């Protein structure tokens, strides 16, 4: 209930429109009730009465009624128009607001959240869950009100017209209601099962298409076809089962309402014969009964709308209620221009485990053992939407909590370091040793669990996040570009800069050469609808993007993407340019970087186990020597081996 109330809160902002929509609705219902009365009057008085002059019928009255019908009908349809437009207006505004809120909230949630959330799951929330929230706030509520009002009004009228007949005809209603509810509770879930199987089927297809090289290389076409056929078969069966039940129940409701008509015809007809009822009233009765059947049939749909809105609302608010642990503290001032002194003082860090969509599914056992085809088992629910899965959502929330109650393993222990302005600090260590986590604390993507991170003496938690991050440049291992032009991508952090500045950055990043070769130069679109850049090209655009920010502190994941050797060289050039005069933290991959670093920090299991410069570290026994021996030494040997001329 609280969830529905919160959803309605979104509609409350547009209450004026809502009120107008409901006025239209009620007026329309009342006028709609007049219709059968008009017909009754037409038949009983216009056509059936005997006038004073002994002539049958009342022609002027007939004309009046006909005109009245025209006026009533046109008014009703105008009211309906107003109602549906206003209602749609409100619900679309709700969807619009929800999308905006979700978008903004999501982009401000911390890395910890996004590490665990799956994009697909978030997307489905913002699309289909917003949609069911929209349907609920619009059609859902409206139809509920409509049903109730229509019921009460028509029953009252029917009872007033002929109460015995009214009670008799109402007998069918519970049956229609029952069929409608069955429809909502049994048929719809079957359809959502079918939908899930459809998703499964397309997943197999998609995987096959993206993995076509592997499929062909292993000559597994036959196997893949069988795999697909299995899913295809399941889908076929589910589809037919769902359609079959639907085909049975939906016309059943029509059948039951026909029974109502039959009873009225029989008993009402007898009453007319006895003179207890006029013909017009009998027909009016029949019309009312027909009108009652419609909202009754809607009952099932309404029920499923509401239950989906509850589930969807829960998922939406789960996102909106997720608190980013990294927020500006009240009253903090902006970070002044940074010199570049970075100090870590006894910093420890543990990941908090936020409740996020789709998490916890990372490790999942296969429910049953391998079958002949290997993939035949039921996996419908995996990664899919969980319409009927409220309990597990709830359980997960109990497990992790919305607030940082779940604390993960500590990944950084008691880290202390100081980097002077302009220094290069190289971080080395195995996967999971904490290098990336350490650098992520500087732009405050996470907050340290203990200790403090200070930039120029300011604790990063005591300055405005925005002003801090704008002065820190970041080049990540995977260079993510957005579907926009190259220029827009380079100017990502400073959309207002001139083309000149963009060009300068691109040149410095060794990207200018290839940009010129693109069909539209800087205005070339990249991304799905545009050209595909190679890994090396993307990396250089990302470097240009960081350069343009002219950050005082630079964080570099010094990775070698899958690029050819020449590109690698150019990237190196660009990185050197980027690092010039900035305090640089580099997750080091290359010997030169390591050798030229002012400080080398070797991390192991979240602790700094060695620090110093290359020349001294290489002589010590320890992890640095190990890494050096395993990989860096090769590089040294190559150098030594090369004929003198090359050097």
């Amino acid at each position, binding site marked *: 209930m609280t969830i529905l109330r919160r959803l309605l809160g979104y509609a409350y902002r547009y209450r004026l429109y809502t009120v107008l929509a409901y006025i239209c609705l009620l007026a329309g219902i009342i006028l709609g009730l007049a219709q059968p009365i008009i017909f009754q009057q037409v038949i009983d008085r216009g056509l059936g009465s005997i006038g004073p002059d002994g002539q049958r019928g009342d022609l002027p009255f007939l004309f009046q009624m006909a005109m009245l019908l025209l006026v009533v009908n046109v008014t009703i349809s105008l009211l309906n128009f107003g109602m549906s437009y206003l209602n749609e207006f409100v619900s679309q505004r709700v969807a619009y607001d929800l999308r905006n809120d979700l978008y903004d909230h999501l982009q401000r949630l911390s890395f910890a959240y996004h590490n665990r959330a799956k994009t697909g799951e978030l997307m489905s929330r913002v699309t289909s869950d917003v949609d069911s929230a929209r349907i609920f706030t619009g059609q859902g509520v409206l139809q509920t009100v409509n049903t109730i009002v229509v019921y009460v009004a028509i029953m009252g009228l029917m009872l007033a017209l002929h109460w015995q007949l009214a009670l008799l005809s109402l007998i069918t209603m519970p049956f229609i209601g029952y069929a409608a509810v069955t429809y909502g509770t049994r048929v719809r879930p079957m359809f959502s099962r079918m939908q899930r199987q459809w998703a499964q089927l397309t997943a197999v297809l998609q995987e096959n298409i993206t993995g076509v090289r592997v499929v062909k290389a292993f000559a597994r076409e036959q196997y893949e076809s069988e795999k697909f056929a299995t899913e295809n078969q399941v889908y076929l069966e589910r589809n037919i089962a769902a359609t079959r039940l639907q085909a049975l129940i939906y016309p059943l409701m029509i059948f039951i309402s026909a029974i109502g008509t039959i009873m009225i015809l029989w008993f009402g007809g007898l009453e007319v014969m006895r003179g207890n009822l006029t*013909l017009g009233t009998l027909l009016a009765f029949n019309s009312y009964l027909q009108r009652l059947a419609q909202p009754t049939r809607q009952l099932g749909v309404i029920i499923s709308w509401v239950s989906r809105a509850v589930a969807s609302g829960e998922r939406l608010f789960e996102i909106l209620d997720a608190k980013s642990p990294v927020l500006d503290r009240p009253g903090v001032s902006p970070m002044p221009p940074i010199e570049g002194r970075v100090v870590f003082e006894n910093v420890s860090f543990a990941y908090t485990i936020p409740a996020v969509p789709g998490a916890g599914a990372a490790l999942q056992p296969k429910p049953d053992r391998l079958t002949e085809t290997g993939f035949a088992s039921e996996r419908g629910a995996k990664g899919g939407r969980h319409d009927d899965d409220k309990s597990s959502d709830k359980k997960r929330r109990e497990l992790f909590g919305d607030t940082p109650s779940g604390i993960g393993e500590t990944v950084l222990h008691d880290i202390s370091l100081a980097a002077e302005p302009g220094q290069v600090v190289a971080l080395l260590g195995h996967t999971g040793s904490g290098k990336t986590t350490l650098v992520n604390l500087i732009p405050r993507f996470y907050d340290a669990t203990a200790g403090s991170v200070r930039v120029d003496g300011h604790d990063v938690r005591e300055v405005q996040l925005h002003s801090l991050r704008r002065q820190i440049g970041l080049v990540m291992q995977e260079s993510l570009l957005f579907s926009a032009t190259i220029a827009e991508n380079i100017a990502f952090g400073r959309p207002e800069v001139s083309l000149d500045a963009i060009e300068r950055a691109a040149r410095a990043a060794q990207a200018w050469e290839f940009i010129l070769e693109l069909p539209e130069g800087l205005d070339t679109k990249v991304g799905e609808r545009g050209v595909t850049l190679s890994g090396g090209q993307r990396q250089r655009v990302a470097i240009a993007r960081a350069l343009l920010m002219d950050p005082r502190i630079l964080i570099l994941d010094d990775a070698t993407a899958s690029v050819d050797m020449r590109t690698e060289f150019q990237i190196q050039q660009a990185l050197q340019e980027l690092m010039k005069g900035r305090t640089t933290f580099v997750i080091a991959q290359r010997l030169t970087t390591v050798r030229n670093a002012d400080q080398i920090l070797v991390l192991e299991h979240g602790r700094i186990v060695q620090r110093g410069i290359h020349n001294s570290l290489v002589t010590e026994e320890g992890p640095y020597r190990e890494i050096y021996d395993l990989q860096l030494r090769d590089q040294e040997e190559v150098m030594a081996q090369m004929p003198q001329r090359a050097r």
Partner: protein
Amino acid sequence: MTATATRPASSDAPPGRAKPRDPEEDEALGKAYDPRIVSRTWEYVKPFRARMALATVLMIVIACANLAGPYLIKVALDYAIPNEDTGLLLLTVVAFFVTALITWLGTYGQTYIMSWVGQSVLFSMRRQLFTHLQRLSFSFYDNMEAGRIMSRMTGDVNALNEFLTSGVVAIASDFFVLVGIVVLMFTLNWRLAAITMLVLPVIAIATHLYRSRSREMYREVRRQNAIVTGHLAENISGVRVVQAFAREDTNRAQFDAVNRENLKRLLKATLWSAGFGPVITFISTVATVIVIWYGGRQVLGEEMTIGSLWAFLSYVGRFFEPINDLSARYNSMQAAMAGGERVFELMDTPPAVQDRNDAYELPRIDGRVVLDNVVFEYLPDRPVLKGISLKAEPGDLVALVGHTGAGKSSIINIMLRFYDIKSGAITVDGHDISAVTTESLRRQVGLVLQEPFLFSGTVRDNIRFGKLDATDDEVIAAAKAVNLHEFIESMPFGYDTEVQERGSTLSQGQRQLLSFARALIADPRILILDEATSSVDTSTEKLIQTALEVLMRGRTSFVIAHRLSTIISANQIILLHHGEIVERGTHAELLQREGHYYNLYSMTFLNAPADDSDSVSPRLEDVPPPPIAFPASPGGRPSNRA
């Protein structure tokens, strides 16, 4: 729309990719009836024609039962009630009950049969399409994005479904009902019917105009909606960059703009479609008023009975539904025809690489590979391999080196016969690869890609992909051979752990090892390897190197080499440049020669300026060391699996 940090474009990918896709393409507009498509589709429906006939009969029965309703009421009103004929009243009531029952069961039967037929047809169409997709060769996939193939298989096939399950029968049914109503009205009172008929065309035309316009508007809405979704998806996948550059406010404003545009278009479309109601109501009320007025006078003039008038009014009220329905069908027929056209086009695309009619099974080979003056091109007259000749003895390690676009990947592609070559010959143990079945060839040639592609499913499934009938012991043996067994065992579900698409279950290095195991279990005679350059941590790197040795042992291996160790241990290094072999020999020989290889080597592994070096001449201090894998966290994400 999604962020672009997916896979880097393969180094010498065939040209002509990633052309901006026309968003209009998949929107259906055009003919609502295309005899070619209909007759092609009929081929699929034919096996079910008895059922189709039954469904059609049911449809006619239902329509008759439906139309009988108002007539029965008329009988009750005109004959039974005024004459106090209880027997007749009972008879009409029973008849009414029977028609209702027929309608219910008939609708059930008809819907069930039609959806059964439709779904069965779709089932076989999808299966056939999928099987066909498996046969299509790489040149097809180069020019067709995954998304488009997906939409052929899903959207277009489903559009045909409309035509099958609801289309044909429903159209016939609507026509039948319309004709039935008209006939009944004329039978009841031809003059009144004639007058009412004046309104009918107006309803039909208005309905059709309204529908076409609103469909256009909703198409715009959908397009804008796709933009909204794309924007959102990109922002979620790029959230780290967004936060790093503190771009939240700008993005919010941008999103609000597209979101607002979406709202605007939607409301415009709503305004239009909601306006439809009053117009139709007005027209049909005019018809009703005519009937009441004109019919009423006839009733008073004793030219017509009240029951007839009532039945007449009921029929007028039922007029609109089939018209509206038909208009909707018209649109879905358009979609079906356009969809069908694309589906059949896909089905008719011949695979570029096909087994010859006289293709034979390649017997078990030793692994002697000879390329004889091979010329190959992706696009006509733009050869990417210009007369390549090389020879590898069983067990040889051949390293392919060269710049981007030199033709390394192309050599791999043609050796597996992903593409057919233009001229020259590739033989394996003396068998021309175009003379043997591709299946038997590829079974003996293993491929390990730079970025391992794993399928969703368990670890076991993924290893077994290399050899479907492998026993559990064989799977374990393969995992052990590539040093992956211990890790797999350490996971909570061991070999039954699900591999996630881009999931965090396995690290980059582990995924690579898994792809090694997959190749190993297939036990190919020839191994083709695109060495990964992405960085893994030291210990994994060590594991990978030993696993590589195991994998290559005793097989002829072709490697696009990035590791120095691989290059140095190669029996032959082939240096490619613009599709030609410019140098070949062992590492020592080639260094001695101080030619192209020497230059490439010195530039990449030492970055010292070579003679013909480009404008940049770095000092030694600036020179980047070799791109040898070195500790890093995989995937560019903060490693939080402590």
